[in-house]
């Protein structure tokens, strides 16, 4: 049985484990029909031209974890940002780990999607927001059909979340191959602010496929900073579908640090529903081997006087392949839009590949839109400069790569996270420069 058939037939078993009388179950039932009809995307679709799911769909993934697997904090501490106080929503093999988590209901909700879907007090928020902006494509619908668990974050108006929130998904690999489908909902009301860090971490050699969907709603003047750390094992693949709706004068930034994993696909979609909205999309990709990272972004400018800024940097070694497909749509009404996009890449090896494709669809006439893309090698003169100061070739290359990605790192607003990411980069490049980058 192929993976699609297996998933469709698993839906019946899934229904036995959830409350089918819950109002959202209709949404699930419709979603499985959409998935049944559309299936997984293939390379024939323009948006999936450079990313094939074929090789990762050949595994016989178990769809539901059979048992609860506990993890010792000591084993996984290094995957947390642990030098500052944070809220934590942690999952092990798709199940909530209360032991590793630190949630709250104090004037805001930082808790579980399963609670939000099951308890009446969350009903108004779920009714208003759940599955409202997720695209009804095959892969997102698949997640919707099986939506049960994930992070639920609700920040009411005029509230500054007092600490960053970490969402971490571990997979232990007790199953030979495992598919996870976390579903997150984040609602940030007027004048409120939150910082969120999301990480998917496999602890096993067994294949893991995560198909994640996150909906983020930023109301008027809300500020949301979202950081995705994708530094997973070679056996793990991730399809991340993130949908963001912004109301007037809100600012949402999403940073995606893609440092590893087998196949990573980021579908990042911004919809600007009010005036004076600012959307920021930053990414650093550093991969090697046969790793594949595909950033597929959409910024939809619907209202006038808004901005979007996209800055994606990529470093590709060995046979790694990268894709950047950045689409910007400016509606006729969206006058005075400022939309900027840049994608700069370094290929360290002749076998490495990057496919970079900007797509601008502009229907307004009074706008400033730009896009730029570069593909090059490390600057030999710069390398010589560093080496002439006694710095070895490997360290000199690492310094240049760090310098290349620096402006994106500089925009990380949690200093401890920035330090952690620079350390990840240094480890990844195998250097110790005698100071924290």
């Amino acid at each position, binding site marked *: 049985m192929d993976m699609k058939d297996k998933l469709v037939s698993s839906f019946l078993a899934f229904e036995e484990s959830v409350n089918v009388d819950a109002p959202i179950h209709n949404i699930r039932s419709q979603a499985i029909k959409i998935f049944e009809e559309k299936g997984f995307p293939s390379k024939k679709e323009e948006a999936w031209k450079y990313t094939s799911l074929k090789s990762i769909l050949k595994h016989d993934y178990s769809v539901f974890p059979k048992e609860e697997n506990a993890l010792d904090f000591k084993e996984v501490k290094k995957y947390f940002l642990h030098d500052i106080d944070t809220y934590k929503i942690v999952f092990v093999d798709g199940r909530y780990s209360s032991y590793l988590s630190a949630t709250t209901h104090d004037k805001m909700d930082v808790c579980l999607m399963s609670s939000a879907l099951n308890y009446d007090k969350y009903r108004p928020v779920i009714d208003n927001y759940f599955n409202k902006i997720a695209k009804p494509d095959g892969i997102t619908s698949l997640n919707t059909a099986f939506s049960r668990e994930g992070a639920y974050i609700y920040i009411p108006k005029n509230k500054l979340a007092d600490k960053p929130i970490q969402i971490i998904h571990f997979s232990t690999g007790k199953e030979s191959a495992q598919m996870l489908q976390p579903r997150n909902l984040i609602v940030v009301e007027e004048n409120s602010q939150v910082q969120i860090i999301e990480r998917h971490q496999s602890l096993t050699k067994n294949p893991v496929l995560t198909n994640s969907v996150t909906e983020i709603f930023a109301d008027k003047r809300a500020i949301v900073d979202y950081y995705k750390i994708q530094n997973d094992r070679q056996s793990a693949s991730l399809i991340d579908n993130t949908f963001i709706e912004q109301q007037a004068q809100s600012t949402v930034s999403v940073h995606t640090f893609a440092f590893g994993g087998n196949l990573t696909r980021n579908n990042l979609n911004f919809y600007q529903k009010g005036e004076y909205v600012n959307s920021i999309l930053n990414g650093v990709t550093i991969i090697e081997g046969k790793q594949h990272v595909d950033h597929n972004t959409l910024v939809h400018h619907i209202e006038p006087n808004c901005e979007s800024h996209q800055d994606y940097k990529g470093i590709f070694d060995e046979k790694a392949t990268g894709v950047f497909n950045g689409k910007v749509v400016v509606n006729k009404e969206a006058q005075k839009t400022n939309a900027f996009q840049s994608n700069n890449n370094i290929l360290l090896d002749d076998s490495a590949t990057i496919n970079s494709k900007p797509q601008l669809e502009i229907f307004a006439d009074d706008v400033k839109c730009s896009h730029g893309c570069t593909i090059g090698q490390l600057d030999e003169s710069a390398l010589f400069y560093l080496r002439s100061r006694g710095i070895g070739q490997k360290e000199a290359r690492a310094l240049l790569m760090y*310098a290349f990605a620096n402006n994106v790192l500089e925009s990380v607003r949690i200093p401890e996270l920035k330090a952690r990411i620079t350390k990840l980069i240094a480890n990844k490049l195998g250097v110790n420069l005698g100071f924290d980058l």
Partner: protein
Amino acid sequence: MLEITDLHANVEGKEIIKGLNLKVNAGEVHAIMGPNGAGKSTLANIIAGKEEYEVSGGKMLLNGEDIEELAPEERAHKGIFLSFQYPVEIPGVTVTNFMKTAINETRKAQGLEEMPAKDMLKLIREKSEMLEIDRKFLSRSLNEGFSGGEKKRNEIFQMAMMQPKLAILDETDSGLDIDALRIVANGVNKLKSSDNAVVVITHYQRLLEYIVPDYVHVLYDGKIVKSGSKELALQLEEKGYDWIKEEINA
């Protein structure tokens, strides 16, 4: 210290250095002058080990050791320092951190312990004061947004920190106003001793008023065609290079 005999070198198949001889002893200051395109910067880069230059003949000895096969960092570890004509910007890496890495990598290669942080700070303070560099400047990203003069002054600061045996200054005077020139020259003079040597590459005599050379060489068409005392620099300033070209062609 440095002994170059009959050096030939190509860039992308084109011969730039065509049988060059140069001998620099410890304690000496040499100036290399010459018209544009003569090969001055090429020579500086070859000594420092830039890989895009292919040495096709001749010998380069540093204290008797053939350095031709050494990587740029290995040459640095042996005490060669090149002050760049166009220093490179490295965003996100501060001048201080860059110097820490450079010094400790060099010490590691020399089999020494890392320099204790306290000593490093002391050295930084001492050298930045000598070159009248503002401490705030040291926590800026290396060369990023520096003016031409700041970049050159920073090069000499790096030289002061690294304390090389052989320093090559490639057009360090360009982009410097007269005050900065004096400070930089003063720094170089203070670093001079009987066991190191300085090679100054310049177009103009101006810098040589402050860093007084023991020898002046004229580099023309890939060779040193004339050598003399510091008076030669004055002559060149006054008369240009045409008379030398005529002398050679005669």
